[in-house]
């Protein structure tokens, strides 16, 4: 269950090469639709390389990098992209920096050239930085409008404190407000280099064509002499606390968080399976017990993102303010149950089928395919993680779940947003 034209992504249609200047190139040949998707990952970049004083710099770089190159103004770049009907974007994430493009097949070469100019020769004009900085600060403020974001922001801070994962990828008003053009140029200078770049392509294109286009655009890019280093990050320890924010809302948001495992940990697939069991889909444990049987919530779920460092494991729901305490107890109990009781064989089997089925359904479009392999590469897991992960899930036992739940999910951090 992968793509429209391929039953499986076999080594025959996924090609991985390291170019002489250190760029990792992944190409998936997929004839299914007349388009090509490309994801460029800068692996050492994103929030995890930001100091707290400069939190949000990756995000600001993402906003301004499409707004000027050595040859083109912001408007000229937009005109080139839009007259071809392509989509081009840049995003900062916790663990990496990403540039994406999607075009119909015949336009790919031209847009890749433009993307190359943005990656290698951006100018970061002062006027564009001013504008995007102002808008970024407004975005940070507008997070306050969504109770879910408020609760999540508080929880993230409680769990991570000084660690970069403790701050939104947008940064804070103070940190973003202090950023200068020099900071941005330094960021680009430090992290945008060929040995830090992974280019992942999927679509109607041959490996030969893709390799030669990438060579034309990036081939003469030299690795700088200095070695790329990143800050060492504070150690993380779980010291659960509880915090409440009072806001004039209709619903209470109840969110319980735990410090989970990093993606390279052996416990990662086990926690992934637990979060699927608890929170994924209409037959998940939380949905059935707390929504279907008790009508406590409309939105109720669990999530556990894939991160290079210890990721948060979260359960939450939105509920009527008078049910706040019942909701906390309900979520707590459901997680605690996993520290005491083993899952039955049919529960375990069901959760595995669900996660593996949905994992396969997540690789249908060219963008999804380019994303997932580029991302695994950028996290240092390699493209083989695709199959390793699925094997690891198959091998999880109910004993492992009990043990991992006891290790990570014994005591929650609790973050509440509710009206007075």
């Amino acid at each position, binding site marked *: 269950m992968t793509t*429209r034209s391929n039953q499986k992504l076999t080594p025959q249609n996924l090609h991985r090469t390291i170019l002489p200047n250190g760029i990792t190139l992944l190409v998936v040949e997929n004839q299914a639709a007349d388009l090509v998707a490309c994801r460029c990952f800068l692996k050492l970049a994103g929030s995890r390389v930001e100091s707290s004083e400069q939190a949000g710099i990756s995000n600001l770089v993402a906003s301004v990098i499409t707004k000027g190159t050595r040859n083109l103004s912001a*408007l000229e770049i937009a005109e080139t*992209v839009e007259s071809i009907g392509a989509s081009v974007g840049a995003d900062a994430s916790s663990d990496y920096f990403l540039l994406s493009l999607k075009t119909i097949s015949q336009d790919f070469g031209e847009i890749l050239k433009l993307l190359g100019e943005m990656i290698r020769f951006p100018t970061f004009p002062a006027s564009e930085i001013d504008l995007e900085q102002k808008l970024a600060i*407004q975005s940070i403020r*507008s997070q306050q409008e969504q109770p879910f974001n408020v609760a999540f922001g508080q929880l993230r801070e409680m769990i991570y404190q000084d660690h970069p994962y403790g701050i939104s990828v947008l940064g804070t008003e103070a940190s973003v407000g202090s950023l200068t053009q020099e900071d941005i140029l330094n960021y680009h200078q430090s992290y945008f280099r060929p040995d830090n770049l992974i280019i992942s392509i999927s679509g109607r294109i041959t490996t030969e064509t893709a390799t030669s286009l990438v060579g034309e655009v990036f081939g003469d890019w030299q690795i700088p002499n200095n070695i790329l280093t990143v800050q060492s990050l504070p150690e993380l320890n779980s010291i659960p606390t509880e915090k409440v924010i009072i806001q004039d*809302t209709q619903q209470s948001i109840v969110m319980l968080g735990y410090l989970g495992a990093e993606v390279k940990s052996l416990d990662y697939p086990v926690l992934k399976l637990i979060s699927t069991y608890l929170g994924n889909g209409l037959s998940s444990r939380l949905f059935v017990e707390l929504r279907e049987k008790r009508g406590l919530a409309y939105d109720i779920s669990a999530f556990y993102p894939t991160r290079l460092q210890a990721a948060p494991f979260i359960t939450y729901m939105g509920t009527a303010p008078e049910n706040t305490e019942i909701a906390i107890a309900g979520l707590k109990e459901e997680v605690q149950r996993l520290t005491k009781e083993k899952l039955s064989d049919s529960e375990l089997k*069901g959760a595995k089928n669900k996660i593996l*089925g949905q994992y396969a*359904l997540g690789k*249908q479009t060219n963008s999804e395919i380019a994303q997932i392999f580029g991302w695994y590469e950028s996290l240092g897991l390699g493209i083989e993680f695709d199959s390793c992960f699925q094997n690891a899930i198959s091998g999880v036992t109910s004993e492992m779940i009990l043990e991992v739940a006891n290790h990570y999910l014994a005591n929650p951090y609790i973050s509440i947003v509710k009206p007075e």
Partner: protein
Amino acid sequence: MQQISQHLKSADLPATVFNLSNGLTLIHQYLPATPVVVSDIWVKAGASAETDSWSGMAHFLEHMIFKGSPKVGVGEFDWVVENRGGIANAATSHDYAHFYLTTAANHLRETLPYLADILLHATIPDDEFIRERDVVLEEIRSSYDDPDWLAFQSLCQTLYNSHPYKRSILGEVDLLMNHTPNMMRCFHRTHYQPENTTVVLVGGIEQESALSLVNDVFGEFSVPSECPPNIVNAEPPLIGIRREELHLSRLEHGRLLMGWVCPGAEHLPTAIGLDLLSVILAGGRCSRLIQELREEKQLVLDICSDFSLQKDSSLFTINVWLEEKNMDTVEKAVCDRLYQLQTTPITETELNRAKKLLLNDYIFSTETPGQLAGIYGYYNTISNVGQCLLYPQLINNISRTELQRIANLYLSPERYATVRLKPN
């Protein structure tokens, strides 16, 4: 097995349309290399089918479908699907409710019968009705915490006087409290009938299997009831500017929404013209409003324009996120640009750019079986499925003068509804 009364396949349509003898429409497309099948069931039983006092029924019923039938227990369908690695869910709009299921092709025969049974023979148990109503109330409560949702509801209320498009799909709390399981059963038996239903199957299933499966499981609908019909009156045209203003606490910046009532799905060429106009106004950084108001004058945090095709009358909107002090200036600037669209033809470059963007979007949004099934079902429910194929051709054919004419007819700077959201 039922007889097939009609069998349509146009030269261009990659899908085949069958009208089954009980009145049900089946749209099928075989994608040989796809290991997945998407089943998407569209029913003309959206909020527009409700009378004012039955408001919220269609959406609440969509929730209750999952509570099972005499043969299928509460939550059993969800378990059967997800336990096999599939995904199912549903959505309700004004013009439809639809239920979709994605599974590996070899699990289709074990899952689709469950979906068909709960759709055709929903029990709507009394106790489950009371419990699920709390879930819907939570859904409403969470919408009230979303300023953009509130702004959009207010715009619809202001723009439409008589059409059900004015109402929230979720309904109102006090009305929901008065709805009964019997009313809902009546609504279900009235509307969930074969002539209102389109079944779409796209993916790794061949035609013969698809037909026989659908004939097997969608053969026996419930005996029809007759709940109060909703007579939809023609919406009178606006004769001026209608204004509404909301003051909210917890608002970090203001919203300015503007809306125009446009022709429904029966005028597809006009709809496509309006799609192009929304791109010319605010689709991408080169577009007129983004370039002027976000990039140059820096009066807005963001601005977008959207054309949503609806059955009876479509909706053209402009949404602006901005500081309160800029609202007058921005509203006037938008009206100036609309006036300009009416008086001066757009440039050939702009037209080509907008066309390219929509054509490529169309290619980008027909990549997966799920996307294809959604497009077929949607068009067949609000119009007919053949229309979606005309889309690229109609885009290519449209001229600058035609766009000017459409702007003149529908996007008046003197007749629209507008809502402002301001911090308390």
